[in-house]
């Protein structure tokens, strides 16, 4: 008898304004199955599972539970059916104990002692030992995830959804998690496992649904597939325009990172591990990877917002600059565009001229003897507006008044107009309209054409394939060797993004 369907979606559609996050998605998770949901960033995985957990409502289509259509207006309804979810970002209370954290997530008012006892039993049964009296702030990230999982398990779910569970775990903790998932399945509970890591999916999942750009592109049994074939499904099969010559560039190296290891400032983040890279003058080096693999930490190390442990680990035109702060690096000719437009690259309630000052006060000549020259900042705003076609309502509006695309053009333009010797930009066209996207990418290519070195950190593979000369992939804080020329195929990149080809940390541990 074939296993019955536990939860399924039928032609589900979800729109956010004009963005089609899920387009006619069919998903079928069977009872007792570990089902992977594979895809890159923006593929629509989070949106889909949020609908399964009652956080979002589908615009069209049906959700079926054990074959019957259901409506899930909120998480409580989903939990009542038997759906549990462990998010990527935990909602825990650091100063409270494990038992208290679990009790808060339960829908019934159970006396504390009973919660603690049940918690110890459940955690033991599933191989996730927990001490109910410990405060959460003392726990490691892996232990915190255990609390989240046990929270769900205590409500006796029939389906457990795990959103990128291993992105923050050590190799040993991963093994532990896989054992737990096996136990969960043995107890008859299904698991919906969201991931971009191909090896894991091949190892523990019975079935997989692959999403790309909001649509289902394939369903398969990952155990029958190779990593390469999964990668092709995930990122596409096109050969792609190979615009770059196969010859290696011989220009001098502008920037190199040597064996840089930096812990993340965020306790739940991914630190950098022994990163080495070279960027030459006139080249665009792309850094691909799924979000959460250390991109923010890499940007902070490159910009100087976080100092390197040793100065020689970051070398700029032959000079060790690892201890230089961001303005010292700017004075040497570097420029930076961070990922977060509002809040990091620009202060939302400040005017554009003030925002020009943020990035330019050290090296643009805006400041003389401590005094700000507002005329110069304003004319800089005019220059950027002109060169980058920034559409705005007044001459100098607040940053938050601009649309995403126009603000991005400004934030990128204010750096490029300086003709920096090195430009590091993260997610240059995320959330930006097509016209602005084209303009920004062309500007990056032109800048490299004039001899600058450019590093582009991006989750958009199309973008990197279009403009980068070489592409390296960041995974779990490590950087692959860059792919160049004819070696740049979607399959190769997809494999690296999924973790193949990276040193197996379990062996090193």
């Amino acid at each position, binding site marked *: 008898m074939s296993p019955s369907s536990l939860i399924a979606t039928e032609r589900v559609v979800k729109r956010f304004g004009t963005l089609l996050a899920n387009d006619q998605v069919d998903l079928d998770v069977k009872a007792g199955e570990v089902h992977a949901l594979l895809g890159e960033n923006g593929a629509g995985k989070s949106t889909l599972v949020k609908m399964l957990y009652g956080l979002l409502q589908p615009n069209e289509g049906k959700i079926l539970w054990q074959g019957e259509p259901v409506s899930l207006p*909120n998480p409580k309804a989903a939990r009542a059916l038997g759906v549990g979810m462990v998010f990527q970002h935990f909602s825990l*209370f*650091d*100063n*409270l104990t494990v038992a208290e954290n679990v009790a*808060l997530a339960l829908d019934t008012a159970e006396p504390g002692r009973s919660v603690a006892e049940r918690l110890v039993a459940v955690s033991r049964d599933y191989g996730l030992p927990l001490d109910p009296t410990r405060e959460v*702030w003392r726990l490691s990230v892996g232990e915190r995830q255990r609390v989240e999982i046990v929270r769900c398990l205590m409500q006796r779910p029939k389906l457990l959804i795990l959103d990128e569970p291993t992105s923050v775990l050590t190799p040993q903790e991963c093994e532990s998690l896989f054992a737990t998932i096996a136990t969960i399945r043995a107890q008859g509970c299904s698991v919906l496992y969201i991931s971009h890591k191909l090896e894991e999916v091949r190892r523990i999942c019975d079935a997989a649904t692959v999403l790309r750009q909001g649509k289902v592109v394939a369903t398969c049994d990952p155990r029958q597939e190779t990593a390469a074939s999964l990668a092709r499904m995930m990122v596409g099969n096109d050969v792609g325009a190979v615009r770059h010559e196969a010859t290696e560039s011989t220009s001098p190296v502008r920037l190199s990172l040597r064996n840089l290891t930096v812990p993340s400032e965020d306790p739940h983040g991914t630190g950098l591990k022994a990163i080495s890279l070279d960027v030459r003058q006139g080249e665009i080096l792309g850094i691909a990877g799924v979000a959460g693999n250390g991109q923010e930490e890499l940007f902070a190390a490159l910009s100087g917002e976080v100092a390197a442990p040793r100065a020689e680990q970051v070398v700029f035109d032959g000079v060790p600059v690892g201890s230089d702060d961001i303005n010292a690096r700017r004075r040497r000719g570097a420029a930076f565009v961070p990922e977060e437009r509002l809040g990091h690259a620009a202060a939302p309630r400040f005017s554009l001229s003030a925002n020009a000052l943020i990035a330019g006060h050290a090296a643009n000549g805006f400041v003389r003897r401590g005094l700000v020259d507002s005329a110069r900042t304003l004319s800089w705003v005019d220059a950027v507006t002109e060169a980058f076609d920034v559409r705005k309502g007044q001459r100098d509006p607040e940053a938050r008044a601009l649309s995403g695309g126009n603000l991005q053009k400004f934030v990128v333009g204010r750096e490029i107009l300086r003709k920096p010797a090195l430009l590091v930009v993260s997610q240059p066209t995320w959330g930006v309209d097509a016209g602005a996207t084209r303009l920004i990418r062309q500007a990056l290519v032109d800048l490299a054409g004039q001899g600058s070195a450019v590093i582009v950190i991006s989750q958009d593979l199309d973008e990197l394939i279009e403009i980068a000369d070489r592409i390296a992939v960041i995974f779990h804080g490590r950087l692959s060797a860059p792919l160049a020329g004819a070696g740049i195929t979607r399959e190769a990149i997809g494999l690296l993004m999924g973790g193949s080809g990276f040193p197996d940390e379990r062996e090193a541990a």
Partner: protein
Amino acid sequence: MTLLEAIILTVITASTPLLIAAIGELVTERAGVLNLGVEGMMIMGAAVGIAVAITTGSSALGVLAAILAGVGLAAIFAALALGLATNQVATGLALTVFGLGLSGVVGAPYVGLQRAGIGKIEVPILSDIPFLGPILFRQDPFVYLSIALVVGVSWFLTRTKAGLVLRACGENHASAHALGYPVLRIRFYATLFGGACAGLAGAYLSLVYTPFWTSGMTGGRGWIALAIVVFASWMPYRAAAGAYLFGGLTILQLHAQSAGVPVPSQLLAALPYLITIVVLVLIMRVRSQGAAGPQSLGTAFVPDR
């Protein structure tokens, strides 16, 4: 009655209003709300309490009115700081100034009018035990109420789900919201409770401690109650210890002066504040990743859907 007995009794009466106000503010802060307006709510309680007591002739009505006055002021604070997400520091200070002023206006017709203070409750037989008897079993109802508050609040916070949820709102309002709890509503009730206690503490001052009204009679006790909450690391039993420490030192330094003790009385009086600062620093050092006090304390919560 020996001198020691007398001292202990005065310490109890000095500490009780501090304890009552501190317990209320403790609950408010555990929910994540920093209400600096305790002084204003307390003195309004004192003024309204005695005004109603003299006008109606009933102490009980006076106490009730005082509690309502505290709740009323707390509601103003809540409407602004929780409803409109105004800056909690500024709103609390405004409340203090407003309450101080309004209390003066309300209390003006009653300045200096004496009335019999609320009497003590005597537990028969037990209160005749030498020494311990009067101390433990012959106190005014507020003293017993203050102890009951400490026990009750402690039980509520640590042993009930509602208390756990309240603490969760103060620790991490985003997570509490994600789990589906009505953060603002819970904070609202916690704020009102703080106001009720502050009003009650004020009533103690004007109806028991010195049973008449003078302008500014709280004398900064509201600020001391805030210090006690921090000193106590937001825990009820420690708040009791803190209240008695502050109250005790206040009495002691008066006696030390007359006894010719070489330590300056001001140093003794300053000790609780200095200790509180040390406690604040120590808490941060002991927990490198945890936080001192409710993590979301004082931050506005504006849920975005």
